[in-house]
């Protein structure tokens, strides 16, 4: 049985700047990293492998250089890494992306039964949190988002019990398998690759699937298949801040002013 982990290679956002004139992202020279939330999804997949003896495959849609990120996943111990790369996939929004990832999962499922698809709760570049649910919808899987702990998986009864982290409360839910699970950072601490595994990963095969392999209708994927189109990227104007009181001279007063301000805005309850 197989766990499929979807990962995305994203620009290291702490190093991304926006061109003030054109409003475009300056990506030149910005290193790529594995989307931080996805590192937790990957870790959870590897833990399931250890606990339930499942195989783990990672898939990623992206340009050819995404191979570097897939090799990192191989160094951490996944069994199979598939790069979904084709010009036809380019420019995709969350809808078109989820179609490609869902199709890849479907094709993997033809060889080995897929029980769980793991995703990070969102990516740090798009921040939409839509791709995971999109995959679940397209595959007809149960979807559990914002999972902070997988309590139990019953492979016989095809049931999973997981705890979701919601605002101000937790929710323990049961769902039937196969399921798509998107994880929050609290779910685990990612492992670090050993050197022998890194060296193994350097020479390991990353499977490449282009659209000849995937056979998706080109009208439904990539830029053409995207329901949203990017018209402009800009930094939102930030309202000028305000200094409350004089914290250095009278910290108590400043703290009280802050509390008043927060309760006025309905941000805290007193």
């Amino acid at each position, binding site marked *: 049985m197989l766990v499929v982990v979807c990962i995305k290679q994203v620009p290291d956002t702490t*190093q991304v700047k926006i061109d003030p004139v054109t409003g475009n992202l300056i990506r030149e020279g910005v290193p790529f990293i594995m989307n931080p939330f996805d590192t937790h999804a990957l870790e959870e997949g590897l833990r399931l492998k250890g606990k339930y003896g499942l195989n783990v495959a990672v898939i990623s849609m992206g340009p050819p250089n995404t191979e570097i990120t897939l090799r990192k996943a191989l160094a951490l111990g996944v069994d199979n890494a598939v790069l979904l790369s084709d010009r036809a996939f380019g420019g995709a929004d969350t809808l078109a992306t989820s179609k490609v990832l869902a199709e890849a999962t479907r094709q993997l499922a033809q060889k080995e039964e897929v029980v769980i698809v793991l995703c990070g709760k969102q990516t740090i570049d798009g921040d939409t949190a839509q791709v995971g649910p999109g995959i679940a919808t397209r595959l007809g899987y149960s979807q559990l988002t914002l999972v902070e702990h997988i309590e139990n998986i019953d492979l016989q009864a095809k049931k999973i019990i997981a705890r979701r982290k919601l605002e101000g409360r937790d929710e323990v839910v049961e769902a039937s398998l196969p399921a798509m699970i998107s994880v929050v950072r609290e779910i685990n601490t990612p492992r670090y690759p050993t050197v022998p595994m890194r060296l193994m990963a350097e020479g390991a095969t990353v499977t490449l699937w282009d659209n000849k392999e995937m056979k998706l209708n080109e009208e439904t994927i990539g830029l053409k298949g995207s329901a949203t189109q990017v018209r402009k990227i800009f930094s939102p104007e930030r309202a000028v801040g305000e200094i409350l009181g004089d914290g250095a001279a009278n910290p108590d007063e400043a703290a009280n002013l802050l509390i008043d301000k927060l309760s006025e805005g309905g941000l805290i309850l007193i």
Partner: protein
Amino acid sequence: MTNSILFLTIFLISISFFGWSCFRYFRLITLGKAENRFDHLGKRIRDLFLYSFAQRCSISGSYRFGVNHAILFWCFMILLVANTEFLLAGIFPDYINLANLPTGLYYTIALIFDIASLLALLAVLTAAGRRLFFPPKYIEARTRDAFFILGMVAVLMLAFFGLHSSEIAQGSERAALYMPISSFVASSILPGASTESLISLANISWWIHAIVLLCFLNYLPYSKHMHILTVIPNSFFKRLTRMSLQPREEFNKGNVFGVGQVDQFTWKALFDSYCCTECGRCSDVCPATSTNKPLNPRLVIHDIKENLLTNGPMLINKEQAKLPLIGGGQDGSIDEEVIWECTTCGACMEVCPAFIEHVPRITDMRRDLVEMKARFPQELLNFFENMEQRSNPWGIAPAERTKWAAKINVQPFEAGKTECLFFVGCAGAYDARSRHVTLAVTKILDSAGVSWGILGKDEPCCGDSLRRLGNEYVFDRMVKENIEMFKEKGVRKVITQCPHCYHTLKNDYRRYGIELEVVHHTELINNLIKEGRLELTQTRDLGNIAFHDSCYLGRYNNIYEAPRKAIALATNQAPVEMERHHDRSFCCGAGGGRMWMEEKIGKHINVLRIEEAMKENPETICVCCPYCMTMFEDGLKDKGADNRVKVLDLAEIIAKAIK
């Protein structure tokens, strides 16, 4: 005749047993990996004489009691000749006898032996007395063992005098006049004794001497006195650099990285473990041991030895080792937390009189934990990721590396246009406090007319902490990239303000085939003052300045005087020395990657050092390292003394004094 046959039998049995013990022990050394310690023969032979025969380490520094060891050592060397003769004469009484030598020579030898025996007896009594009545706190190990061996030596000496004085009393010793002590015993204790009793005293003494001597020989390999056999060769094998540099690793598939099993150490590391005299000096100076942490360098070496003795015979037979080297929770196994507590300050290696190299052993084992097992304190996960992704410990964007220079005019480094690269370092570029030091350095460089430039956002981390923490794989990749860039940009001369950058760029990078001319700002400042390129007014408003030696400047690179001279010239007063200074300086607690880890056990090392500094009533503490800066400032806050005492980098003191 019967006697000599009986003795020959005993002698052969015991010498075979001794030979077998030695074979058993030294065969295990061959399990170790290769390492060349036969290079620079001239220098090695010189060290052999300097350190073994001249006993330089025993007597060094504050360990004045080592004089006693030196006396014992020399008596031992002399009596080695005496005892060889004694044993051979016991076997071939008709052929071997010193008395057969030419008269003059015989008398001289007799005199030397007699006096050496007395000195040895006195030295042994002094050593025993010291252990009984004035035990130094760092002597903690196997006191019973020590008394046993001291007792044996004392009995040997007493038997020597018993034998010779009874011979003198019988009138059968022609060198009596030249054996003042034996003669004294003969004349004061033995007069009037019958010939028979004198003969039996001589006989008994002879046999006691013979048996104890053979016991002593056989006891050696099983006690800390094994060092008698190993330290002399180890002074030949000793490292030739101040701090031994960890070798590089070859990252090929199938290789083993670091040391997770005792046979993965080099033979020298294994040999070291046989050299420990259990003197406790390393424990005495170790910052971790001194603050009640489980790490004790002496025990690390002891555990390596125990592990070798337990696993070695199995490994020789190609069987599985049964006692894990790391994390076995028993004697002969080293706990993981112990391995992470080392600050790599090198104080243990500096004081070890047996030339044991403790720090590289700890890094070897860190390599195993990081590279083979990916097991390390959780705080390090972020650190490793940040270093790999953003080439700095905090993971701050490289674009922010030049923020410190927002208000000044800085040239980018360009070969031909600028002479020196000012390698700002991660702390100097990102740490709010260290940025002031960076600015002070630039002020000094400019006012002395030094031609310098920076790499700005392209400046990488040197990788120091990665290497000390055992993440050699990432270090290796970073260094290769960095060197590529240095070569591309034509970097030759480098100025650093961090001793860790300094040591890494200067000494570690050399192994990667780049010889950079690296200078730390302390040396540079001192040179600029000497050359008259800095005009200083003497500032006096800093009060008493206590100076702290940074490990990576001092012990690692022998820079002690440059900062002191500079302070003296800038303030017209020599800095105040703390109790521990120069090569005995006490670490701030941040080296060896400890900067990035929590200090969870025992007293904080920086607080202990601050308490030491406060004894000198300083108004200012001068440091030369960004880590020391952080640790001292934190320590002062901890003690609530940060409003009375300030911590300044040498560059800041000098910058204040510039006209």
